[in-house]
């Protein structure tokens, strides 16, 4: 028996390996990114031969795991909730065709959102795809649910989704565990083209099968303890009951416990789809009113057949956006109790003293690029070179180029390129020459860049594309990219240089440059625009390559300089406003700009920024 602290994502990795998962694929994305590295850690320490890969995107990850699953192996793939959109095409079809070995799709949700483009609810994707979904309330439960998911998947020959929310993924908990053993299902694909390559006629039959499976699973979910369970006392009736799932069910338990509210029963639904209909009906019948608390959207509430006595999002009692943090849930419950004239929660009000704090102006602290980050040099140079351009950008640390005024659009992975071509054609139609600069990170480019670039080249769009190559997937925690040729477990993979890939997309202008040299970068941008405007030209690609300051601390700044500000400084704030390095600050006493030595990395890129030449490097 071993014991250690696990991150929720580590607990999920543990559950996967305890269940004998043989193939694990993923594309990183907060809050899912640590599942695969935690699995790698356990695979190494336990000497397992589980296959792991960082796939190039989520669709690729799901297809790879799916193929392994239909050979009879237990497989899983992990992603963030918006990653499931990328994999949606595979998911919808895999639900119909079904699986042989267990297939678990782990899609991590981000209510808030803390680090995502949307607050979408994976449970609704499960309903759309018609596959079962499990919604853990803590790391230990997530670990157990992985095993349940594999069993369900194999019993009903259906992919199963596990939907941990961010507060499960990034919670830490002490867990005990035993020796891990690899599952030894051999790969044995049995040909059956009517199923694995089903035509529309057979899809109809598969759909019917799928619907029958869901009916059976729904029955099973009615009694799937401890995930779906209530604490009603037989024969008793209650004025108010609560239905909750996932993380909010833990919060509700704490609140009811703290206030000693044994008069409010709780139905916990940890396996919400296919909906445990009769279990929910039993609960509704035992309560005059029922409050539904679920993250992030309305699955449970939507599935309740009779909503006449339901308080939730449809009735306006529960907010439809944002994380349901504890004080919000307490407020919702308090309102419900007041409306029903039930005893209140007795929340201490601290409002009087709060006003004292509120009186002090507390400025917001926006996330910002790190001191020494290569992206800062690129964004500063782009804006300086082409201030009137449209700046399409993408998903990654460099989204923070927003702060430097060089990011106008962020839609989804790869849209920096597709939107650049879209903008080009929209303006070209009017005969307007609109400069467009697109920025995308290296990992994002491998994820969804090439398809859009092929399209843009083929249809003769004209823009400058800057690939921000910091040699890592920085925002999600420094996962390797295909350009490094390092695989998920640290072993050697085949390197795929960006230059070769871009050239293969039909690009004839490719310049590689270190963006720390901002003057040269501006010259290159100028050259690129000349190529874009040339009737015989095309799309110009600049690869701005410099190591990430966090991943490669010493390599990124080889010779650290001592930076100081001379008396020439007139505190115009140009450097702080436009270059926005956190190490630059306003010294109120001297009324001059100053350098915070604790933050300055000594890259000296800012020297080029000051209009008065007041920033000095030694």
């Amino acid at each position, binding site marked *: 028996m071993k014991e250690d602290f696990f991150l929720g994502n580590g607990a999920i990795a543990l559950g996967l390996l305890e269940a004998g998962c043989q193939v694990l694929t993923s594309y990183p994305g907060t809050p899912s990114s640590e599942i695969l590295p935690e699995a790698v850690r356990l695979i190494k320490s336990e000497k397992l031969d589980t296959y792991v890969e960082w796939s190039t995107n989520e669709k690729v990850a799901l297809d790879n795991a799916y193929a392994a699953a239909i050979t009879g192996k237990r497989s899983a793939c992990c992603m963030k909730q918006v990653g499931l959109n990328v994999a949606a095409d595979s998911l919808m079809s895999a639900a119909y065709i079904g699986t042989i070995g267990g297939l678990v799709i782990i899609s991590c949700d981000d209510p808030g959102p803390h680090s995502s483009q949307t607050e979408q609810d994976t449970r609704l994707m499960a309903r759309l795809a018609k596959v079962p979904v499990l919604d853990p309330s803590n790391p230990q439960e997530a670990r157990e649910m992985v095993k349940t998911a594999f069993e369900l998947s194999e019993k009903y020959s259906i992919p199963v989704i596990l939907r941990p929310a961010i507060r499960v993924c990034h919670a*830490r908990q002490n867990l005990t565990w035993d020796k891990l053993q690899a599952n030894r299902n051999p790969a044995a694909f049995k040909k059956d083209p009517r199923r694995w390559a089903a035509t529309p006629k057979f899809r109809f039959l598969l759909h019917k099968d799928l619907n029958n499976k869901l009916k059976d699973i729904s029955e099973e979910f009615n009694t799937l303890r401890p995930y779906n369970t209530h604490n009603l006392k037989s024969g008793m009736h209650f004025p108010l009951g609560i239905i909750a799932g996932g993380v909010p069910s833990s919060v509700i338990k704490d609140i009811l416990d703290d206030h000693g509210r044994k008069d409010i029963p709780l139905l916990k639904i940890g396996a919400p789809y296919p909906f445990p209909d009769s279990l929910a009906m039993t609960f509704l019948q035992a309560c005059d009113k029922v409050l539904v608390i679920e993250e992030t959207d309305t699955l449970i509430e939507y599935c309740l057949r009779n909503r006449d006595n339901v308080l939730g999002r449809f009735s306006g009692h529960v907010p439809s956006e944002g994380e349901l943090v504890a*004080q919000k849930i307490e407020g919702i419950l308090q309102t419900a109790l007041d409306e029903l004239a039930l005893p209140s929660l007795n929340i201490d009000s601290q409002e009087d003293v709060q006003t*004292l704090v509120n009186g002090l102006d*507390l400025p917001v*602290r926006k996330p910002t690029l790190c001191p020494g980050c290569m992206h800062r040099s690129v964004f500063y140079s782009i804006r300086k070179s082409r201030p009137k351009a449209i700046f399409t950008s993408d998903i990654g640390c460099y989204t923070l180029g927003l702060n430097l005024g060089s990011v106008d659009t962020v839609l989804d992975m790869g849209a920096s390129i597709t939107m650049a071509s879209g903008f080009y054609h929209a303006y070209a139609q009017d005969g307007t020459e609109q400069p467009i600069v697109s920025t995308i990170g290296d990992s994002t480019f491998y994820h969804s860049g090439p398809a859009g670039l092929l399209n843009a080249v083929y249809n003769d769009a004209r823009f400058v594309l800057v690939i921000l190559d910091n040699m890592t997937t920085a925002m999600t925690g420094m996962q390797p990219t295909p350009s490094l040729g390092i695989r998920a477990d640290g072993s050697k993979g085949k390197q795929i240089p960006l230059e070769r890939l871009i050239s293969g997309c039909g690009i004839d202008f490719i310049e590689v440059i270190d963006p720390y040299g901002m003057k040269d970068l501006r010259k290159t941008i100028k050259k690129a625009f000349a190529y874009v405007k040339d009737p015989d030209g095309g799309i110009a690609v600049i690869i701005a390559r410099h190591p990430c300051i966090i991943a490669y601390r010493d390599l990124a700044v080889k010779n650290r300089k001592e930076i100081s500000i001379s008396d020439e400084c007139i505190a115009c704030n140009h450097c702080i406003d436009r270059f926005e390095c956190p190490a630059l600050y306003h010294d*109120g006493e001297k009324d001059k700009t100053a350098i915070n030595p604790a933050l300055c990395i000594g890259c000296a890129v800012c020297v080029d920024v000051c209009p008065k030449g007041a920033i000095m490097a030694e």
Partner: protein
Amino acid sequence: MLKSETIGKYLMKPFNIYLIGVGGQGIGLLSEILLRAADYAGHRVKAVDTHGLAQRGGVVVSHLRLGDRVFSPLVQGGEADLVIALERYEALRGLKVAARDGGALVYYDTVWQPLDVRLNRAAEIQAADIHRVCAARGIKDYVVFHPALEDTRMQNTAVLSTIHKNELIPEIQEKHYKNAMEDLLQGSALKQNLKLFEGNG
């Protein structure tokens, strides 16, 4: 490795800790040291951290809850018995969103100015402002600052030392903190941090 056999020390009420700082200051490490120290002391403990975009120079928060009957690791607003901040502005934010009246605040008095302050668009906050808020709310404040500390990455350990010297977390003793640090740090980093932990108060 961890002493789960001693788990079960009963806290009448959960003890809530709210950690706050700026991305890059080492909130994650401090949180994990506290988590492990609490475990060594025999507490049942749950925690939750911030990852992803916010880590890049944004506000980073970690919640820790000690107690036998704790289901969620999230500290409710106004319910933190102890707020630990690694920066002055974030100390005030922690007071605002998390601190319980009558609780405690310990913070490292360094300043990472938010952009509006760097641009001279918002006023600076002084340690005296924080003290005034604490005094009005019956919150005991502990200000940590070591002018001689060369490595800013060790500010979290200076704060840890103050937490220990003032016994700000029930039942956690010196050996528990040290065991936790030994789990998470190695070599010269461990040596230097232990020296700082023992030396200051």
